[in-house]
């Protein structure tokens, strides 16, 4: 799968870079992203160099397994993922494929990592929370079974966002009042508000009926 991805990047004219687990640890820092700003700047340089050399962009393939073996490391990594995702999104010439050893990490960790990415293979992730055009985008389905997953995923968003958190929910197929409460409580803890964009009419009713605080629906 990784090979075909690298090949795909080449075909698309991007210069690929592959970091195996040891190399990723060396680049990112041992179990903790010690310098996210420096790393972002380095990625931007890599992309700029690739473009200067005639490539259409830069593609990075990272085996991140060793970076996310503990809950603390995953929380730190999730914040990094959101920062990087936003930078990638704003540039448009970087694509990234994160590879994780599901056998080593276990199902819970894999689920936590899966929801941070716009797409996952295999595609069995209940929802996706990633950088959008303005703020973040939340796709998929949220219910009783995803409350803990949503809480940890959204914590990485609130802690990397200054001010109100704009969430595009145009591709959110289902949400219940419990999940809206989770978003509101996370935002409240950071003194923020959640602003939902392109919400279905029912979302406003769930906010009203559920007494959800710190979450508002943006007028369309």
């Amino acid at each position: 799968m990784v090979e075909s991805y690298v090949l795909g990047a080449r075909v698309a004219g991007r210069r690929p870079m592959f970091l195996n687990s040891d190399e990723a640890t060396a680049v990112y820092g041992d179990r903790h992203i010690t310098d996210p700003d420096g790393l972002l700047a380095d990625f931007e340089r890599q992309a700029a160099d690739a473009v200067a050399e005639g490539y259409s962009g830069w593609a990075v393939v990272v085996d991140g397994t060793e970076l996310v073996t503990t809950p603390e490391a995953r929380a730190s990594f999730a914040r990094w993922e959101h920062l990087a995702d936003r930078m990638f999104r704003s540039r448009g010439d970087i694509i990234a494929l994160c590879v994780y050893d599901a056998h080593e990490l276990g199902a819970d960790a894999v689920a936590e990592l899966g929801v941070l990415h716009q797409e996952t293979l295999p595609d069995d992730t209940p929802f996706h929370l990633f950088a959008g055009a303005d703020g973040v985008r939340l796709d998929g389905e949220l219910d009783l079974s995803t409350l803990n997953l949503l809480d940890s995923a959204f914590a990485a968003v609130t802690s990397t966002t200054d001010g109100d958190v704009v969430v595009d929910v145009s591709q959110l197929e289902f949400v219940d009042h419990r999940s809206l409460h989770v978003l509101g409580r996370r935002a409240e803890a950071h003194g923020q508000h959640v602003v939902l964009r392109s919400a279905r009419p029912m979302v406003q009713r769930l906010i009203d009926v559920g007494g959800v605080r710190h979450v508002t629906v943006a007028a369309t």
Partner: protein
Amino acid sequence: MTTSTALRHVALFYDDTDAVVTRIAATIEQDRRAGAAVLVCLPDVLAGAVSERIRVDDRITFLAADDRYARPVTAMHALWNFANAALADGASRVQSIGQISFDGSPSDDDWHWYERAVNDVFADVPLTATCLFDAGSVPPETLACAHATHAEHIGEGHTPGRCDVERLLPHPVGLPQRAADLALDEVTRPAAARHALGRLDDVLAPDILDRARLVVSELVTNAIIHGGGRADVRYWCEPSALFIEVADDGVGIDDPFATLRPPAFPVRGFGLWASHIEATRLHVAARHPHGTVATAQVAAP
């Protein structure tokens, strides 16, 4: 003398519109002086006449008696929210003045059940709920039930008939008399019940499907949490409505007002409440030999 923290549920029988408008206007002015907040939900003609007789300020709220929202659950929702907000805002009491349109249809049963639920839900709330009954047009059996569901009565000359209060329960959701279009046995995840609705994507309007997803998701969630961990789900698809049945074999619900009881903080009972708000009709009953069967109709508004 009634204590100020208890409910007063008053039936006001009238046959003279001018007289009742005068009476209501006087009541509102009296409530205002006593520091009460007043909610008025009357047909346009009555509401208009009352508003001309009183000073309208922010202590008085007029709610349109909008047909789309004229259901027991939405009436309860409005009254509950108004009372809580007014009391939190420092009102000494809350006065609600309303008139339900009893018309002899099966929905009359739902509204009598609502009146019973008000007695239970607001028992310890400083609320005076004054319900108007047009004695000239309301059927005699409705007047008898109104007598039975209200502790206080105003208005002379009406001889109440007999009414068995305990039997005032909502009428069931009339499921189509045929085999279900979709049957799912022993569902253990709400998502499984929602995803099955995808098969009806091209048959039902998006709004109905959205609301149906919420309704079935919450009913299955309740079955998982309270009803033994699994539910049997049935769908019937009609041209402009979806019918849903969710049955479990758990301990059952022993509360005739379960679907009309506003949820309390911290988060409890919101699921059933939200599904009742989204459904056009929702009915919960005991299942034999044990368990609960919830039936719902989700139709275009």
